[in-house]
């Protein structure tokens, strides 16, 4: 009689263990995410903002997220400030062309590109916050090549 129960119970326990394991995976995903998610509710007091006299924007080509030499040299100049700052906020943006949700993802990718560069240069990932606004917050609201090139950017803010 007992034997009969043993098997299904054993399988049940195994299943539970597997569930817990996959939950843990999810949890760990979200732990990793916590460094981003904490953008929410974290207040940036303007007073906390570190001012530099550097241009705080890096620009991109249409539908591209790669950094060119001038972008990289600008970021190099930022490094000393970044090392001293508590939080680095990278805001990714796109021009108005194309679809909005795709641009949301593209903006994020641009910000991540900058983040990866900083990490390679020794900045801790835990300091870096990545946000994308897609095409929703353009700097210039014109439909010209000039305006578009100014809108394809990542904005860097230090706190």
């Amino acid at each position, binding site marked *: 009689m007992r034997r009969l129960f043993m098997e299904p119970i054993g399988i049940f326990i195994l299943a539970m263990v597997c569930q817990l394991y996959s939950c843990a995976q999810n949890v760990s995903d979200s732990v990793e*995410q916590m460094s981003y998610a904490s953008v929410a509710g974290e207040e940036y007091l303007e007073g906390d903002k570190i001012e530099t006299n550097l241009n705080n924007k890096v620009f991109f080509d249409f539908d591209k997220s790669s950094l060119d030499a001038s972008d990289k040299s600008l970021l190099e100049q930022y490094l000393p400030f970044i090392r001293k700052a508590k939080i680095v906020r990278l805001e990714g943006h796109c021009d108005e062309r194309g*679809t909005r*949700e*795709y641009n*949301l993802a593209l903006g*994020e990718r641009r910000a991540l590109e900058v983040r990866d560069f900083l990490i390679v240069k020794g900045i801790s990932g835990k300091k870096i916050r990545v946000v*994308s606004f897609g095409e*929703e917050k353009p700097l210039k609201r014109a439909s010209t090549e000039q305006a578009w090139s100014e809108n394809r950017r990542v904005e860097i803010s230090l706190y």
Partner: protein
Amino acid sequence: MRGLIFLILVSSNNIFSILEIEILKGSDNLSKIAFIPFGIEKNIDEKYGDQVSSLIEKNMVLFGEFENLNKNEMLSFPSTEEDFYYRDWKIMGVDYSVIGRINSVNALGNLNISYSLFNINRRIKILDGEIVGNENNIEGIAKIISNRIYEKITGLRGIFDTKLAYVVNSNSKTYQICVSDIDGQNEKILFSSPSPIMSPDWSPDRKKIAYVSFENGFAEIFIQDLISGERESINALGMTNSAPVWSPDGKSLALVVSFSGNPDIFSYSLNTKRLNRLTNHYGIDTEPSWSPDSKKMIFTSDRSGSPQLYEINVQSKRKKRLTKDGSYNARGKYFPDGKSIFFVHGNNGNFQIATKKLSGRFISTLTSTSLDESPTISPNGNIIIYATKKDENGYLAGLTLNGKSRFALPLKNGSVREPAWSPLLK
């Protein structure tokens, strides 16, 4: 028996040599409809008769699908079948005539209205109807009558009682998500925010709208109940969740979650709050949309190097690439019959609305402006409305799928974008 064979052989001689002329093209003209002011029973205010027929007329010509006969060209004003003479309308080149009668109004303001529709060329009555409704809702009554007439003439479901949701950005300062009637009337603001709002989508029962709001500093999906106004964030286990699209059965949302900065497509169960991963690729996977039979999803992915449309079987997770032409194909959605798709097609720097049959090879572009996006389709599959721009101002434009009509929706105070057509009232 022999006689029968004889007959067949003789007559078949003729059948096989008869001339057949193919007619493949139709006229570019629109059907002309006469909306005759409804008659009234004694002691009823005349205004009802005029009001109802005017509202029906406004509805039917709204999207440029029909021509209407001017009232001052009408030779008679029948309100019953007995008074109706086809020749009065044939002379004016009318194809269909609508007549009706306000039969009674009771103390509560409830109107009893009857109406008929005639096919002038075939000289037959094709519709008889009766409807009861309150005088406070005379617009609603007219919409129902318009639907019936439209259905009889075109064979398609009428969409005059459906709604449009859209985002308005005024002065670059406030963002609002609004819902209005299909003609722009009765606009209601659902939610207002200093931060951007995106991607509205209707639940199949029309009671809720999901959208993306940046009020907390990043892209987050909210579901708002249209009646109570309650809002709920779905907070799906990670940052940047966006592109919410309701499943046809209303039980799940397809959405994009960006775990570790990699946007992938998930199905989110509204009941269990669990995420079911559908794509797992280092490229950008976004803009999911369900097929009408819930078995597949179309989505945008740049895994090939540039944004293209793919289809995934929700069960088996097998994927298939749908678009090859052009360097940018995104924001795909299915037609209500599931046999074709419509999407944004980038071509030489112009972004236009295009369609493609799932079984076919070629893309047809529907628009010729250059900053077109966010197309949405009427539930009867006949009209597409999309967002476009003119002189830095965003507005909504549309077209009928038989290509005969194009229109623009009235401008608003601010830049309008992201239209979403509501489902039919069930």
